């Protein structure tokens, strides 16, 4: 006889815990950075170019949409960076306790967002 057991496979009903959110965002930000590589290297080349090319480069990054995209990548980098440090500590069995793991996960989310806001504001 088939018992009626609750199946918690409904993604709308599963509440992902904070460490899970950090983990999936680590992956999302990693994939975003993968696709950003040519653009970021092109812009890096622009910063090291001659005076005329440098003006072209400045014109490209002056577009508000481009600035928003770059701030998005800035967040992706900072989140991936902070979450990565956390994962390295977890790899050597530091901070595995549930309370600590939740606290550091929140810290990663907050620090990367705050740093993005500050740097984004300064660089706009």
């Amino acid at each position, binding site marked *: 006889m088939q018992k009626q057991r609750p199946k918690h496979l409904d993604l709308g009903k599963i509440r992902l815990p904070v460490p899970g959110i950090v983990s999936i965002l680590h*992956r999302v930000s990693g994939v975003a950075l*993968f696709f950003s590589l040519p653009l970021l290297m092109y812009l890096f080349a622009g910063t090291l170019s001659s005076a005329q090319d440098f003006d072209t480069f400045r014109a490209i990054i002056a577009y508000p949409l481009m600035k928003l995209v770059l701030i998005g990548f800035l967040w992706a980098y900072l989140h991936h960076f902070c979450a990565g440090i956390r994962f390295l500590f977890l790899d050597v069995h530091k901070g595995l306790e549930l309370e600590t793991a939740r606290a550091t996960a929140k810290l990663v989310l907050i620090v990367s967002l705050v740093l993005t806001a500050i740097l984004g504001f300064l660089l706009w």
Partner: protein
Amino acid sequence: MVNRNVVGAHYGLRDWIMQRVTAVVMLAYTVALVVLLLAMPSDFDSWKALFSQTWVRLFTQITLLALFLHVWVGIRDVWMDYIKPTGLRLSLHVFTIVWLTGCFIYSVKVVWGLQ
């Protein structure tokens, strides 16, 4: 008698370690770059002078190589986790290799200022 047939290409642990080691290299580079940027005047000439030094270029290039190896393991894991049809997954692996090889060659041009 336990007769375990261990299968696989045994690249799992090697790649796992490589992803961590390359992460530490990028961590060191990020910290070093932030310290250098804070210590120098923030203008175009200082920025160009920084990246005209051979050791900075070398450190940058090594970090970018670490980055591409790190990205290879990470993106390959993403394809392996979510893409079930073998043909599509293989195509995405090939796309990733081509993309990263292109990025690496371009990075050499950029870092060493080749025309």
